[in-house]
């Protein structure tokens, strides 16, 4: 029992770190421009398929593939921002939701035509890092993916909190009109933030794809999980997202020994609604007092 729980906790933290990274992309975009990005899941799926293409067609090392995917994701995000999002920024919530949902439909539509909805697998293994104890095994791929997720998140915090660009992004998130008055080109800051959000989501897609087989529709599931994560961590708060992800991973792992796992989504989403209603600023903000 005790080993069972330990294994579940470790698994939860490792998977949770990746949930956290995926959610950072979502919450950054929401925090900066108040847009719920409904193409989040499709972006994660694009990241997964980019990994597939880069490893099979180009023969790149799967972990190195993150670099081009981040860059490509950024460019793609900026493009999508100028084409589909910029015109509706500042209008109602509904408009931005629909604009990103429309892009989502297009991506899924093209993806289905190209790859069908059958699963793809990228064969990665790092057996020398695997940890075994009493019959339970933590695969090396999971450890590498979690570590990379944390590194990426840390780099992103560095960017947000220790660079001029990061300062500008935070200023725009805080008060767009004031930032404009201070001479910040808010249009570009918004575009860049959107690009970063998309890049991070695609990067998370790469990490997930090193662990599990995936289809073009897999992103939808991570999009829902990202919603839960950002609510746990505080909507619009990239720092909380990583912790929120780990909390979600732990919930999934720790409840499993006690109930049938098909009940996990019931627990997850009920908790999600309750937390949202009781602590809209996020569970972590509740713990440490209002910021």
């Amino acid at each position, binding site marked *: 029992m005790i080993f069972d729980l330990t294994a579940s906790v470790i698994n939860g933290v490792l998977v949770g770190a990746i949930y956290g990274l995926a959610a950072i992309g979502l919450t950054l975009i*929401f925090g900066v421009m*108040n847009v*719920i990005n*409904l193409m989040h899941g499709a972006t994660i799926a694009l990241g997964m398929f980019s990994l597939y293409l880069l490893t099979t067609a180009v023969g790149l090392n799967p972990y190195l593939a993150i670099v081009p995917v981040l860059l490509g994701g950024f460019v793609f995000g900026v493009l999508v921002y100028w084409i*589909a999002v910029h*015109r*509706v920024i500042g*209008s*109602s*919530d*509904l*408009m931005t*939701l*629909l*604009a990103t*949902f*429309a*892009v*989502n*439909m*297009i991506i*899924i*539509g*093209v993806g*289905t*035509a190209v790859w069908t909805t059958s699963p793809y697998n990228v064969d990665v293994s790092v057996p020398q890092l695997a940890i075994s104890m009493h019959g339970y095994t933590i695969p090396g791929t999971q450890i590498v993916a979690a570590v990379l997720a944390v590194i990426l998140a840390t780099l992103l915090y560095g960017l947000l909190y220790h660079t001029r660009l990061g300062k500008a992004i935070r200023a725009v998130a805080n008060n767009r009109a004031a930032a404009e008055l201070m001479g910040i080109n808010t249009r570009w800051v918004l575009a860049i933030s959107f690009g970063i959000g998309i890049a991070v989501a695609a990067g998370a897609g790469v990490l997930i794809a090193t662990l599990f087989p995936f289809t073009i529709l897999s992103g939808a599931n991570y999009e*829902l999980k990202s*919603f*839960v994560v950002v*609510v746990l961590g505080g*909507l619009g708060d990239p720092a909380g997202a990583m912790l929120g992800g780990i909390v979600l991973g732990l919930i999934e792992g720790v409840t499993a020994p006690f109930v*049938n796992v*098909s*009940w996990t*989504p*019931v627990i*997850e*989403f*009920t908790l*999600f*609604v309750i937390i*949202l*209603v009781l602590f*809209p600023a996020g569970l972590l903000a509740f713990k440490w007092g209002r910021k």
Partner: protein
Amino acid sequence: MGSQVILKRPTFWIILLATLAFALVPALTGNLELRENLLLGAVYIILASNLNLMIGYTAYVNFGNIAFFGLGGYIGLYVVNVLGWSLWPACLIAGVVVSLLAFILGTGILRLRGAYFALATIGVNEAVKAFVTNFEPFGGASGMYLSFSSFNALGGARHALWLAYFAIVVLMGLSLWLSLAIKNSRFGLGLFAIREDEDAAMVLGVRTPRYKSLVYAISAFIPAVAGTLFFFKNGVILPDQAFDLTLSIEAIVMLMLGGQGTVIGVALGAFAYEQLRGFLLVSSTFSQFQLVVAGVLLLLIVLFLPEGFMGWVYRHLPRLRRVIE
């Protein structure tokens, strides 16, 4: 609003005529294919116009509206299939139970605003879906299958399907009438005040929490009844079919297309969307890319015609604002 006043409104007569046309044209011509097309159109109009009460009138974006439809279907089919009652009380029970649940839920989640509320409704839909998938009295993951003999109580399958169709058309008419009646009532004015500025509305004496819960519950009633009828006609209900988040979002697309906050516009939007998707689906050129085409169209509307079709009409023919609401 008094009944005489509503009779003077052209929109009322438009609704009546449209409802009659939906009911009579397929019935008189006996054209079953037309009936199936119109049925889906009517269901979409029901979903979109009830959702419009939340989104268009109150500016609360509800992604979970399909949960009302699905849950209504489940409760109704449970009453018919397991309890063995007839279809009509089942419809009523489904509507009342779902409305009550919505009211209770609403008092909680309607404290949230904007994106927070939208997210909460996604959570509600997923939680309900996951719950029903595990809930054995509703058949769990296997769903509920209606025996072909269930139709016998209503005079055989052919007859029963016509009855279900007429009932759905009536619900469509009722939905539109409800939209019109609320729009022209004190209650409606309260909702519009919430839409424009909730805090100001509260200061002015609108009891916003009660208004919001009430409109949330009202917007659940007809979709729940329609869910019972739709899945009765469908013959089977499965969690995936009943709580399809995509359909929720599609309903939002429909009301945007027609013009949120309008009565006739939303109905036109729903009908046009249904026809468009139906066309793309059966057209050999587009069927591979129907999702892409629909996505591009939606994007174009959002970017260039955000006020929807009716908004565009009002801009060019302002007088119509009083005639077609």
